[in-house]
């Protein structure tokens, strides 16, 4: 969840500083600087209360997901996804180590195991890079892998449910089915767009 700095100021740096400078400037002009001071201090205090409110539900989910991992559910799901793999990654040789890493990464993402997914994804990228004839440039397989990763189908949006519970929702999980459908649509769009772009790229 942490964005690494990429050579200098990031988009987020710009947005963040714009938020502060513009609201302080505006508050001084319209004559309510004290409202901003109060809001800043109150928001900082609330942030900590919110984070503490998350501890319980996060602990429960992470405990449950550890059980899912130990029970081999990630592995089972990865196996079930193998047919889709050949369609998505025709360039990766059959039985290549990249296949296992990619499938496990996708399975972990579907189950909402972000922490487990990232190291697997990095391993997959490393292997895809070994297969890359031009190490400076992304291969089609890498683009497909990241396309699937940037919107991955999510069965259990655990952090969102935790935040909703912490905020006192009476139906924290009510967003599960629409979230699942939205991620499904996003993934289908990503796979289709990836195919179209790839063809156009290769064609010229």
């Amino acid at each position, binding site marked *: *969840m942490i*964005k*690494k700095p*990429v050579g200098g100021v990031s988009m*987020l740096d710009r947005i*963040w500083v714009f938020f502060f400078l513009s609201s302080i400037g*505006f508050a001084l002009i319209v004559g*309510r600087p004290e409202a901003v001071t109060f809001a800043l201090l*109150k*928001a900082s205090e*609330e*942030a*900590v209360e*919110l984070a503490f409110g*998350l*501890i319980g*539900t*996060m602990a*429960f989910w*992470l*405990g449950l997901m550890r*059980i*899912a991992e130990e*029970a081999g*559910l990630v592995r089972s799901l990865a196996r079930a996804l193998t047919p889709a793999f050949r369609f998505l990654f025709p360039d990766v040789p059959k039985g290549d180590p990249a296949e296992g890493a990619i499938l496990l990464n996708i399975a972990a*993402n579907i189950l909402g195991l972000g922490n487990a997914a*990232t190291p697997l994804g990095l391993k997959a*990228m*490393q292997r895809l*890079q070994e297969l890359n004839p031009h*190490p*400076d*440039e*992304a291969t089609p397989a*890498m*683009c497909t892998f*990241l396309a699937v*990763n*940037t*919107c*991955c189908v*999510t069965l259990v*949006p655990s952090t*969102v449910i935790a935040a*909703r519970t912490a905020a006192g929702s009476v*139906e924290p*999980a*009510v*967003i599960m*089915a629409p979230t699942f*459908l*939205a*991620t499904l*649509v*996003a993934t289908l*769009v*990503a796979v289709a*767009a990836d195919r179209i*772009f*790839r063809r156009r790229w290769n064609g010229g």
Partner: protein
Amino acid sequence: MADYLIEASNAAVPLFIFFVLAVAWRRGVRVYETFLAGAKEGFEIAVRLIPYLVGMLAAIGALRASGLLDLILTPLRAPLTGFGLPAELLPLALTRPLSGSASFALMVDALQSYGPDSFIGRTASTMQGATDTTLYILTVYFGSVGVKHTRYALAVGLLADAAGIGTALLLSHLLWG
């Protein structure tokens, strides 16, 4: 269809827990100990979120208290409503592809300000879950292997973000609008 989706959502969590525990038990996992080991991480993750929450909630709090947020959002309200996007959720929709932590903080802000069971609160939650952070993933994954030319990967990721957020909005209107 709408009723069915809501029912499926509400049954999904207990069913998922039942399924995970039943499979784990059958496969001989020491469930309770494993649970405790995983649960320990919950504290760490929640605490690690604090700087992101402080940074983002303070920034959006300043915008709101100065009156600038209202000033910016008022003229946008009508055109955004045409797209079905409540103006209150514009910052969240724009931040989502940039940073998961920042958009998470904005979602939490919406849950606090409008209530987790309000239309805005539910829509914010669905939008936050609807896609992953394109820029973060591209930066970390391509950066880790030193790829500089990323071809069309960014375009595909942003298109997928738009599709996910759009679907989240559509479904929110369908279910709770």
